[in-house]
C-alpha cells in the first residue's frame, strides 16, 4: 500500500486536524479497495488452480480423446469417461450428456412454472399479496440442495417408478424434476423484476383496446420483458448445470451416452463429488481429471453468465 500523497496547501497548514483527517480518509479508501480486490484474487486463484491441474492432466491424456473420443485397437469408436478404472478413457461427452439431460428436464419444469409465477406476482396478485408471496417463493431457493436430493430419491423416484416402467433406482428424470422446482425462484424472481419494469402505459393502451388480462400479460407484458426473461432462463440453466447434490444423490454416478431420462446418468458435478469423496492421490490422473472436468464446468457456466449479463444489459437500457 502506498502512503497517501497529499501535498500540504497554504490554507491547510494551520488546520492540523484537517491534515490528519485527510490521511485517515486516504488510508480508509485504500483499505476498502483492498477488500474489494479480494474477489478479484478469488477469480485469479480459481483460474490458476483449475488451469494448472488441467494442464498436467492434458500431459497424460490427449485433448483429442477428451473432445472427440478414440478409436479402439479393434477399429471401433469409443467415447467413455472412466478415469478411475484400470482401463482408462477420457472422453468428456458422457458427463456433459448427463448434465445437459438433467438440466433440460429441469428447464422444461422451471421455465413455464417460473414464468407463470412471475406473471402472477407482477400482474395478478395485489401489491400486498405480492409482497407476502415473493419472499415465500424465494424460500424455495433457500432449501439446501442435499434436502432436495433426499426428496428426489426417497419420494419422487418411488412415485415415478410405479407410473413409468423401466425406471431405474437412480435416474435423470426425478433429479431433473426436483431440480426444476429448485430453479423456479431464480426464474420467477428475475422475470418478476423485468415485468414490473414494463411501463404501465403499455398495459393501459392494451386494456383500452379491449384486451383481457391474460392477453395483456402474454401479448404485451411478456414480449416487452423478453430480454429480462431470457436472462433469467439462461441464469436458470447455469444453476442447473452447476447443481451437484441433487444429481449426486438421485441421478447416479454412471456417465453414459444416452437420451433416455429413465437411465442412471453421471453429470460433471456428480463425477467431481464422487471422485473427491474417495481418496485419489495428488498427481494421479484421476485427481487431475477432477480439475479438467471442473474447468469444463467453469467455462460452460461462465459463458452462460456472460450471455445472461449481455441480454439483461440490453433490457436495462430499454426501460431505465
Amino acid at each position, binding site marked *: 500500500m502506498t502512503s497517501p500523497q497529499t501535498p500540504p496547501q497554504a490554507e491547510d497548514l494551520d488546520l492540523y486536524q484537517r491534515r490528519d483527517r485527510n490521511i485517515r480518509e486516504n488510508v480508509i*479508501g485504500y483499505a476498502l479497495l483492498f477488500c474489494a480486490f479480494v474477489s478479484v484474487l478469488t477469480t485469479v486463484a480459481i483460474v490458476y488452480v483449475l488451469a494448472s491441474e488441467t494442464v498436467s492432466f492434458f500431459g497424460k491424456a490427449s485433448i483429442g480423446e477428451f473432445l472427440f473420443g478414440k478409436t479402439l485397437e479393434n477399429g471401433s469408436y469409443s467415447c467413455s469417461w472412466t478415469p478411475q478404472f484400470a482401463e482408462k478413457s477420457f472422453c468428456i461427452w458422457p458427463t456433459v450428456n448427463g448434465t445437459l439431460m438433467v438440466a433440460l428436464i429441469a428447464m422444461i419444469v422451471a421455465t413455464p412454472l417460473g414464468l407463470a409465477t412471475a406473471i402472477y406476482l407482477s400482474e395478478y396478485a395485489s401489491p400486498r399479496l405480492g409482497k407476502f408471496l415473493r419472499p415465500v417463493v424465494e424460500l424455495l431457493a433457500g432449501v*439446501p440442495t442435499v434436502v432436495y436430493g433426499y426428496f428426489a430419491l426417497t419420494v419422487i423416484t418411488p412415485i415415478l417408478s410405479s407410473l413409468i416402467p423401466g425406471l431405474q433406482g437412480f435416474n435423470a428424470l426425478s433429479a431433473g424434476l426436483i431440480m426444476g422446482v429448485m430453479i423456479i425462484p431464480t426464474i420467477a424472481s428475475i422475470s418478476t423484476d423485468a415485468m414490473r419494469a414494463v411501463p404501465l402505459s403499455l398495459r393501459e393502451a392494451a386494456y383500452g383496446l379491449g384486451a383481457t388480462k*391474460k392477453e395483456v400479460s402474454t401479448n404485451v407484458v411478456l414480449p416487452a420483458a423478453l430480454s429480462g426473461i431470457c436472462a433469467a432462463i439462461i441464469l436458470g440453466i447455469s444453476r442447473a448445470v452447476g447443481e451437484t447434490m441433487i444429481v449426486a444423490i438421485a441421478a447416479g454416478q454412471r456417465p453414459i451416452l444416452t437420451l433416455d431420462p429413465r437411465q442412471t446418468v453421471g453429470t460433471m458435478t456428480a463425477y467431481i463429488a464422487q471422485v473427491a469423496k474417495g481418496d485419489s492421490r495428488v498427481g494421479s490422473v484421476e485427481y487431475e481429471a477432477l480439475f479438467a472436468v471442473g474447468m469444463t464446468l467453469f467455462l460452460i457456466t461462465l459463458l452462460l453468465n456472460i450471455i445472461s449479463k449481455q441480454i439483461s444489459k440490453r433490457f436495462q437500457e430499454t426501460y431505465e
Partner: protein
Amino acid sequence: MSNGIDILDTIDGQSSESKFEPKLESRQLWGKIFAAFCIFATSLGLVVLAFLIYRVVSDGSSRLNWDLFNLYPSRRPLESGYKAAILGSVAMLTYVIVLVVPLGVCSAIYLEEYAKKNWLSELIELNIYNLAGIPSIIYGLLGLGLFVRGLYSGRAVLVTGILTITLLILPPVIVISREAIRAVPQSVRQASYGVGATKWQTIRHHVLPSALPGILTAVIISTSRGIGETAPIVVLGAGTVLFDPKASPINFGALFSGRLGDVFTDTLWSNDNFFSVLPYQIYEWVGDPKAEFQTLASAGIVVLLLLVLGMNLVAIFLRNRAK
C-alpha cells in the same frame, strides 16, 4: 411507437374476418384457465415445500430427540447422532460471519461510495457478477487446491472449510449490501457533507446505519445458503468425525498458565482439526443402504431446515421492517 402497432396486430388482427367478432366468451374462458395456471404455478413450489417438510418430519420423528445432538456418528444407526456435525456447522457459521461481514461490507462501500468510473472498478464489478454465478462445487475445487493442499498439505480441516464457504458467499453479500447502500437517499450524504463531515464520517455515521437492515438481510440470507452447502465440503474431502471440532482461536489454558509456545496447539488452527458439517453428515447417511440411516438423515434434515429456514424468516422479517 412501434409497440402500439404490434399490440393491435396481435390482439385483434389475426385475420380480417375475425376483426368484428369479439369472441368474448372463449377469450374470457382462456383468461380464467390462464389465471388458474398462474395460481397453480405459484402455489406448486409451496405445496412441494410443505409436503417435503411433512415427509422429513414424519420419516424422522422416531429420531427427533436429544440423542441427535448428543451422539457421534457410528456404524450402528441407533447409536449415531449429529453432535460433531452440528458443532462443526455452528463453528463454521460463526467464523464465516466474522470474515464475510467486514470483507463484504467494505467491498460494497468501496464500489458504491469510492469507486470512480474507470477500468479498475469495472473489472471488480464484472468479476463479482461472474463469481456469483460460479457453481459452488468449483469453489470446492478452489479450496482443495489452495487451502487443503496449499495451507494444510492435504488435510481437510475446519479452517479450510471456513475459508472456502467465506469466498463462496462473498459475492452475494457484496451484491445485496450494495443495493442496501444505494437505497440510502443522496440527501442524507449531502446534509452530512454540508455540515463539514468527511467522506468516511458520512459513511460511518449516516450511510451505514441507514443501510444496516439491508446489509443484515444480505448477510443472513447468504450465510444460510453457505451453511446448507454440501458440494464444496464434499470436494474439500471432509469426512465423518467422531470428536468435537476445536473452535477456539487461542488455547486459553496455555495462555494463562504461561506456556506461550503452546498458545496455538489444540486450537482452530491445528492440523488435526478435521471437521464435518450438518449437510455433509446428512449426505453420508442418505447414501447408506440401511433404512435406519435414512430415518437418521430425515431427522438431520429437520434440524438443518429449522436452522436455514429460520434464518431466512429472520431476514424476511428484517427486510419488511426496514421498508
